[in-house]
């Protein structure tokens, strides 16, 4: 009877120690693996920290280069650009359409990026409208949506300024695509 008991408790003791050993082993192993996993995740998430910076006004062109008859014309947006470690000076970073209301000095700037999924919207001079080659969204020359359209909103207009001397500059921004609201990317 007592022999049985002591054997039982001995076995219990072994089981208890084994259990403890197992727990400690898992803890140690987990702790040892933690640094590489943490470092990997930490570094991998680095892009989330990057932003394209605050939108700034960039010189675009001279008013004289914008047709006075209300016809839009395409202009490249030139700016310094940083791509991870590389810095580019005065590079085309995007394109816009600039349009002047007939007979006035009022200028309107439309981003050439399609609000649907980001393709490059083209100017279809023959048809007198904008057309996106990817999924055939059409826009009026004012950038308005032509239904039915895959694009959820009209073309994105950009803030612009015309100086007294006639220099046109634009506040360059990218917007989230595919949604109805025009939300600027950070």
């Amino acid at each position, binding site marked *: 009877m007592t022999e049985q008991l002591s054997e039982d408790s001995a076995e219990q003791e072994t089981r208890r120690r084994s259990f403890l*050993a*197992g727990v400690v082993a898992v803890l*140690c*192993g987990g702790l040892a693996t933690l640094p590489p996993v943490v470092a990997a995740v930490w570094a991998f998430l*680095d892009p989330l920290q990057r932003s394209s910076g605050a939108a700034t006004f960039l010189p675009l062109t001279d008013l004289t280069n914008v047709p006075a008859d209300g016809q839009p014309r395409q202009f490249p947006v030139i700016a310094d650009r940083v791509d991870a*470690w590389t810095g580019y000076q005065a590079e085309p970073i995007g394109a816009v359409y600039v349009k002047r209301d007939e007979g006035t000095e009022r200028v309107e700037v439309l981003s050439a990026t399609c609000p649907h999924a980001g393709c490059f919207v083209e100017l279809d001079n023959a048809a007198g409208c904008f057309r996106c080659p990817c999924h055939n969204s059409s826009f009026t020359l004012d950038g308005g949506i032509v239904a039915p359209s895959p694009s959820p909103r009209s073309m994105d207009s950009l803030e612009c300024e015309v100086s007294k001397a006639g220099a046109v500059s634009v506040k360059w921004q990218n917007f989230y695509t595919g949604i109805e609201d025009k939300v600027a990317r950070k």
Partner: protein
Amino acid sequence: MRDASGHSESPGLDEVAGGSWISNWLDSRTGYRALVRSALYERVPGGARWRYVWGSTLVFAFMTQVITGLVLWASYSASAQTAWESVYYIQYEMTGGWLLRGLHHVMAQAMVVLLALHVMQVVIDGAYRAPREVNFWLGLVLMMLVLGMALTGYLLPWDQKGYWATRVATNLAGLVPLVGPSIQQLVVGGPDYGHHTLTRFFALHAGFLPATLVIFLVLHLTLFRKHGLHAKQPITKPDAMFWPDQVLKDAVAMLAVMAVVLGVILMPALRAILAGEPIVPGHLGAELGAPADPSEPYAAARPEWYFLFLFQFLKVFEGWGATGEFLGAIVVPGATLGIMFLMPIFGQWKLGHRFNIVFTIAILAGAGLLTAMALHEDYYALWADRSAFADVEKLIESTGGDDEKIFAALGHDKEKLNVFTNRREKLEAIRRSEAFLAAVKQAARDSSRAVELAGRPEKIPSTGALSLVRSDPLSQGPKLFAQHCQSCHAHIDPTAENAEEVFAKSSAANLFEFGRESWVRGLLDPKRVGGAAYFGNTAHKEGDMVSFVCEDFTDEDEWKQDDKEAVIFTLVAESGLLQGTGKKGTGRKKVIKRGQGLIADTDRCGSCHPYRDNETELGYAPDLNGWGSEEWLVGIITDPTHQRFYPDTNDRMPRFGVASEGGLQALSNKQIKLVSQWLRGSWYRPAVHSQASSVRDHP
């Protein structure tokens, strides 16, 4: 539950997980419980032991490399113009990049150490004997794969260190008879080092080698399981299970390895904390040298420490030429590996097993000794006292190193000559070590400057960081000056301890702070203008300028103190190097106006020097318009015999920017510009010095 050895089975994972329906479902679909059980409930004869942990720690180290390596891969760009740049970005700009790279770098070294321990344990315990021969061979293949990954990984940052070490390694591969040159060209990716060297090394490092390693690792582990653990004899303790007894020991060992690795990475941080300095994360973990530059000698080139013994071993064969290198780099290491492959066969006999043990220990001890020798040679100057060899140095100098003359000077005493030769060799060793240590210092300076330049707000141009370094006056100026100017001109702070000594040896003016106030004051100081730091060692020693400064300029009736100050101030203004000298705004303008009048005055400076509208003709004394400016310096370096400078009285200064017919300029226009900018101290300085830049303004 009892197994064959009579031990109760320990609580397993399935018990912890409970017999939940999920685990039942999963088990019925996958049979994972049996898998886990067979993985964990391996019998360990004689119980768990610390000596069995090395294999597991190696697997753990490899897993660490896979995890960190994959994420490094996600940010690395293998090309000659982006490799250094992307690694710079990982190390200095990416969040946690320094830790990621540090872990990968230090764990790679830990792996080599663990490999040595694992091999030693297997050989000493005789674990390679039948039926485990094949597994031993698989292990040796794994070892070579790991070393191959270490070798290929060293190049990937494309910094000076990796570049030059890899050049040596690949050149050695070219020594293999017949196929050597082809092998070399294949590895390098062409006749020269460049984009394809990197893409190939990267493919080897991150693709081919690890994939092969995984295959061999699976085979290695399968055979290990098939034959079971080879127990250390004699068995004194009862058997135990792999889980949890051996796993516990393995896990503790892994944790210890990780602790050591982290310790190595974080050591500089601890040092910074103790010294009260700010911690720069980019300086932790793996270092990044200056970008690889085939045109820039790199005397600090050494392989990674675990290959240092091979490097040193090659020196044994010095003087044997290519045969020696072939022997040292290929035959002997190849033979050693061959013997290791034969170990399981030798091990069948007791004597053979003993031989294996002795051989392994001898190889490791030999490698250790060679490593120590290599380090001793490199760092010898740190503890050797060079001044104790002053007499040797003197004798060599006075005899021009001529053996006959030395023998004569020693009174034709053989004994003395022996002693002398011995000490001369020691002196040589100190000199070599000093050169190495200086190169290491220079390398550190170059590296931190490259990092500083890469961190400019404009970032790195698309032509790569090397083009940044090459167009940096601070990086190039001192080197160009040392090569082309230093044989005549000194460039040393006159207050430095050995300045006079340096001046005495130079044959032209000291150009330290040329164009600045301190320099101009010296020039117009009667005590110094004729000294070695200015015209003392030139043909102008007794020229008009020296006599002007010593006679006219000291005449207090002619030159009031205020006038002198105005001239000094104006000259410095002319060079554009005025620094906060106190005078500002209109006060400054007034002084300059007065100085300009004095300099232009044809009764004063203007009697010789053309300046402003004084109509003094060019050709007698240097033009003082824009004196000391970048344009002026470029002009005089390009052609000192130009009308503006010394058309008739140029004293030995070469025309660096004028090519003789059909020849090349001694210095390109770009180089002349760099030297001029460096002399004027105009180079990029980071706005905030918190980057802990160790680059001093006047190296």
